[in-house]
């Protein structure tokens, strides 16, 4: 039932209620009919007994067998719907005085069983739809009891009437139920239309929710109008939130570079002094070939270093888009960026890339670089001066294990949900943890927090790895 759409379930429920209502109503009608039939039968029986008392009572003391028989015979040969089919008078000693069915109840035969099986007319109840009912009453004459009059009534007309009523009720209720169920279906469908419209607009599955066009909003301040406007407001708020999240993610990408800015300036600045000295030396001793050669070497090394730093920065800044596969060169770039940061903090950096290039190539370079950069910078910040930082890439069966270790105090509890769950994030905090999570999830991976054998905190990222081992 729960699998059925609401637009089907509600009309079905309405139809079911109609059926129950129909059954209850039918039961009431049938019970009423049974009561009416019982009354009818009791009245008829009473009438018959009264008539028989008047007719038979004077004959009993005279033992006028024939007249009594003739009377009972005519009584039981009446051709009416509800009629006595057998009548027997039994004397106080339990012997047959006369019966309309002398073959079964001959004159003078014992008939206690017949009397015992009959129901006294004053206690008569007609519950069962029996085709024949046997009722008895005491026959008196001038205050003297003459015996028990036992009459079997043919109630088949009543049974048939009940059957007819039951059939009519069944058919009527079926028709009424179908009609009402159909009407309920249409009415509920109409009532449910805003709901189904909302369900359609929400898209379900992959399609994003759509706002309801202004033209479709009903005029006035009705429930449906308020519902649609509330829905549209929710959709707008959702769009705005998504946009904000996108902006935040974009910003977080640059935050990591911003956080590197000092180091980068330092990295650029450090060789600059040496390079300027080399230029001065060249100017001063242009004619000394060994000095020129030495300075040129120095200049070459310094400029290459600068080129590497610039390339790494540019690669990072190019963003997470792009489908370029991850290569050892990307990891080299990252090392170029992280190493100076670690050195600046007086930290020991353990850089271990053990995964094969073929394994790395199954992953896009942009998102992985962003993940490694953010986690490594966080590790540097967490490890503090003189601490330890590590980055490792290993292949485990069909997955790539990226581990970023640090000797710091560990990720604060309040920040963990940003990395480990999809729960909404409070503004502030930053450090790109949610960006890392989103990127990992988009790559089909997952994030976990562990502790290494040496007691270092480790953020472990598992990524699918398609290449050969």
């Amino acid at each position, binding site marked *: 039932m729960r699998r059925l759409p609401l637009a089907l379930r509600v009309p079905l429920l309405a139809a079911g209620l109609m059926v129950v209502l129909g059954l209850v109503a039918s039961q009431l009608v049938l019970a009423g009919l049974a009561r009416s039939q019982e009354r009818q039968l009791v009245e008829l029986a009473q009438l018959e007994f009264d008539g028989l008392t008047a007719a038979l009572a004077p004959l009993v003391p005279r*033992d006028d067998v*024939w007249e009594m028989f*003739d009377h009972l*015979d005519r009584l039981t040969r009446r051709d009416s719907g509800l009629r006595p089919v057998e009548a027997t008078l039994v004397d106080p000693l339990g012997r047959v005085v*006369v019966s309309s069915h*002398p*073959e079964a109840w*001959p004159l*003078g035969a014992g008939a206690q069983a017949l009397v015992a099986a009959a129901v006294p007319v004053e206690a008569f109840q007609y519950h069962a739809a029996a085709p024949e009912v046997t009722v008895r009453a005491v026959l008196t004459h001038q205050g003297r009891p003459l015996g028990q009059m036992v009459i079997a009534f043919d109630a088949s007309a009543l049974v048939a009437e009940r059957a007819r009523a039951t059939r009519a009720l069944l058919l009527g209720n079926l028709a009424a139920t179908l009609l009402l169920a159909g009407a309920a279906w249409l009415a509920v469908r109409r009532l449910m239309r805003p709901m189904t419209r909302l369900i359609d607009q929400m898209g379900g599955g992959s399609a994003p929710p759509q706002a309801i066009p202004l033209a479709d909003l009903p005029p006035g301040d009705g429930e449906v109008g308020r519902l649609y406007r509330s829905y549209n407001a929710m959709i707008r708020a959702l769009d705005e939130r998504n946009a904000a999240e996108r902006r935040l993610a974009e910003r977080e990408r640059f935050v990591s570079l911003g956080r590197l800015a000092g180091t980068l300036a330092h990295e650029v600045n450090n060789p600059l002094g040496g390079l300027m000295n080399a230029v001065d030396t060249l100017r001063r001793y242009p004619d000394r070939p060994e000095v020129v050669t030495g300075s040129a070497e120095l200049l070459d090394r310094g400029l290459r270093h600068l080129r590497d730093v610039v390339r790494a920065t540019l690669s990072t800044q190019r963003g997470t888009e792009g489908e370029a596969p991850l290569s050892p060169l990307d990891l080299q770039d990252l090392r170029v960026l992280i190493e100076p940061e670690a050195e600046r903090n007086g930290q020991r950096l353990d850089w271990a890339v053990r995964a094969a290039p073929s394994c790395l190539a199954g992953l896009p370079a942009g998102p992985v670089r962003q993940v490694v950069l953010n986690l490594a910078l966080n590790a540097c910040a967490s490890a503090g001066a003189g601490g330890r930082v590590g980055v490792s890439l290993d292949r485990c069966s069909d997955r790539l294990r990226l581990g970023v270790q640090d000797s710091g105090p560990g990720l604060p509890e309040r920040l963990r949900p940003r990395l480990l769950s999809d729960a909404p994030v409070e503004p502030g905090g930053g450090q790109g943890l949610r960006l890392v999570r989103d990127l990992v999830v988009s790559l089909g991976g997952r994030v976990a927090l562990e502790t290494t054998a040496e007691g270092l905190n480790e953020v472990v990222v598992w990524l699918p790895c398609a290449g050969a081992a």
Partner: protein
Amino acid sequence: MGRMTEGIAGTGFVTRRVALAGMAACAVPARAPALGNGGFRFGLTPVFLDNDWQLLELIRAHVREAAGLDLGFVQRRTYKEVVALLLVGEIEAAWLCGWPLLQYPSRMTPLALPVWQGAPLYQSYLIAEEDRDADGLADLRGDIHAYSDPDSNSGYLVTASELVAMGERPEAFFSRSFFTFGHRNVVRAVARRLAQSGSVDGYVYEALAVMEPELVARTRVVWRSEWFGFPPVAVPSAASDTPTVRQFARALFGMEATGPGREALRLLQLDGFAPPEPGAFDSIAVRMARLADRG
């Protein structure tokens, strides 16, 4: 539907009948009955009639046409009542049984006897259920037995006198007996198994076999009596020779003369009416004497 009646007092009723007749004799001593407002009143019992208005209308039409008499019918349940009416002059004629005539030989005179199958004679039958294995009255011992009328020759006297002849007591031979006050009712009682056997007028039984074969088929004749004078139309002796009665007698003897008369005879399955022969009821008298001898 033709069913004949007979009426004859059983011994148990003689005292009452004599008293009643005596009273009647005092009230209307030997007076010729005058035609009252109801015309010529003709007494019948339901044994014979059973609401057969068509037959009555035919007889009435015939008598009017043949004798100019306006016939009125008076019905009573028992022979006893009809006999009493006749004796006190409440009716001018009655279709009775030979037995009451023998009870009051000086008070009632037979006027005409129906002729059935060529003779004014009939028998009494003992009948039982159709599958009953019985050859005579002796086989019916212990039955529930249906009589017709306590004043009927064929419906009571024959069986009772036969039992006396067998040395039995009529009131003890059967386990139970009752009167149905109609020969057709005797057949019905046996056919419906209210009674196991019955005493019935042979003419009525044969007539019923033609008219209600399915009813008669549920019974069989166990024993047939000797022949008796057919139940006669009787009049008070004092009025037996009045012009009106003579007219009525002529009408009876001339049933064949009119269309309604012929149709009535056809319904009754009779050939006609004949004047009574002397000694017509002698065989009934024998049985009557046998019962009287028993005391």
